[in-house]
């Protein structure tokens, strides 16, 4: 199968990258962000792209994985892997509650309900003491199998592993009965039902798989950054960013979300670190002390969300199937 080889090749290249880049925590960090967003969007894609159910509250699963892991490790000294599994269970419970309320309905309620659930989770984490409230949770000490968890490298490979796993699951689903059924649901729910497809069951199945994978990423993130709070792991902005990444790359394709992440994460980083502004100044295009120069220096860093918004609008209007979707059609 062509795609399996492609995954293996790209995974292989990615695995070797840290050795090539050498000791540069900054770049490894950016790559980790790329891998994480690629995995998050790919996991979302299983439900959104293949089953056609757009969740606007996926941060709930990321955050529940992160918080469960953090709480179990920092307060109860659990093993990180066990905490991760616990996180998956919590995420799945939330997913089942959401799914059982909404998937029996026709119409476009899933998106709204997913936001409501995500906000309930976020506000709960914000208001309860055991989740650290507005202060969040800090992790001082964590060990696993003697790995040096102060280095970024284990997390690089951890994220890569989850990405490969997600792509693998997507590929498997695509050629299995479940995958066919999900796509039928996406295309025409009535037709799907009339052909013997239990809509609720399969939508829930896709949601559970997606939620579990997202939760694992949240757990990884928590131990990687060692600090979480609601704005980092439960914010609506994260949910939206996940969707935009998938949309721009190409919803419902295997590599679309990955492409989206490869394009958007570095772009955000470039904007955030003011590389463009610095470059303009260095080449004398803009004077550092002029109004424009000062404006750029202070604000370009905050502009990446604005750029996301513009890209989204342009994408929906002109490239509704994303970049990969566009090329597929032309083929």
């Amino acid at each position, binding site marked *: 199968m062509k795609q399996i080889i492609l995954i293996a090749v790209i995974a292989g290249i990615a695995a070797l990258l840290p050795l090539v880049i050498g000791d540069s925590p900054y770049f490894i960090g950016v790559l980790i962000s790329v891998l994480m967003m690629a995995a998050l969007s790919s996991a979302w894609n299983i439900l959104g792209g293949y089953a056609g159910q757009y969740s606007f509250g996926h941060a709930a699963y990321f955050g529940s994985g992160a918080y469960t892991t953090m709480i179990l490790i920092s307060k109860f000294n659990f093993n990180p892997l066990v905490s991760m599994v616990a996180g998956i269970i919590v995420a799945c419970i939330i997913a089942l509650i959401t799914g059982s309320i909404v998937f029996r309905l026709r119409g476009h309620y899933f998106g709204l309900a997913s936001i409501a659930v995500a906000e309930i989770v976020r506000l709960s984490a914000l208001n309860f003491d055991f989740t650290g409230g507005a202060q969040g949770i800090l992790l001082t000490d964590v060990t696993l199998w003697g790995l040096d968890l102060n280095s970024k490298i284990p997390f690089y490979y951890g994220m890569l592993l989850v990405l490969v796993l997600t792509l693998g699951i997507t590929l498997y689903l695509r*050629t*299995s009965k479940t995958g066919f059924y999900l796509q*039928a649901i996406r295309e025409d729910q*009535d*037709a799907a*039902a*009339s*052909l*013997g497809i239990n809509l609720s069951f399969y939508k829930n199945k896709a949601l559970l798989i997606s939620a579990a994978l997202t939760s694992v990423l949240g757990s990884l993130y928590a131990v990687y950054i060692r600090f979480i709070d609601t704005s980092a792991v439960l914010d609506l902005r994260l949910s939206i960013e996940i969707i935009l990444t998938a949309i721009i790359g190409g919803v419902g394709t295997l590599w679309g979300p990955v492409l989206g992440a490869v394009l958007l994460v570095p772009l955000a980083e470039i904007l955030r670190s003011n590389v463009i502004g610095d470059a303009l100044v260095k080449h004398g295009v803009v004077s550092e002390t002029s109004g424009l120069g000062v404006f750029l220096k202070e604000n370009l860093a905050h502009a990446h969300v604005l750029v996301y918004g513009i890209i989204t609008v342009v994408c929906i209007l002109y490239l509704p199937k994303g970049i990969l979707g566009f090329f597929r059609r032309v083929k």
Partner: protein
Amino acid sequence: MIQHLLHINHVSKHFGGNVAVSDISFSVDEKQIFGLIGPNGAGKTTLFNCISGFYPVTSGDIIFDNKTINNLRPDEVCHLGMARTWQRVKPLGSLTVLENVMIGAFSITNTTREAEEIAMEQLQLVGLTDFSKKSAGSLSIGLKKKLELARVLATHPKMLLLDEICGGLNHTETDTILAIIRDVRNKGATIVFIEHDMKAVTAVCDWIVVLNSGEKLAEGTPEVITRNPDVIAAYLGGGHNA
């Protein structure tokens, strides 16, 4: 004693104040080709939607293969052996013709390979083998209708509900479909047909029920029905062509 495969027992369907179907009763026997005709708005598709589980009935019972199926979901009805097509075709547009039919086949198997085999059989039956890799959305209407037929046949149903399967087809295409239907019946399936094309209906049906304004107007063999003055009046009066 002939077993009724499908028994419609005083079924009514109201939408708020609007009575779409009123106190309809009839029975369909195994291996019958059964016609359900009537002018536009007579309630035929509504009845189909009730039978196949898309609408709950307001009153009455629907008994299929000795089981009461009133409150079942559409997918449950399909698993009991009843499959339906749609008046406005519903191809799964982004999937290929083969994949569309495989979806039907998956209702009776779990493996992709078997589903593909069953699907190829049905494509051969309806004559769509050459189109198997084409996207379903790109087909002409005649071919889309054939695809719908192939897709439901892949579920190996005991009973087929066909909603205007000949709609929009020319004479040659209609004859092909009718031949397939006779073939399917001969292999053991029962068929209930909504159709406007009177020629098609009289050519192939064993028994016909006529609906008008939600009520049963008449029932009988094609010969009897085509000579029934009330039926003729309903069609002409309702302003509809044959």
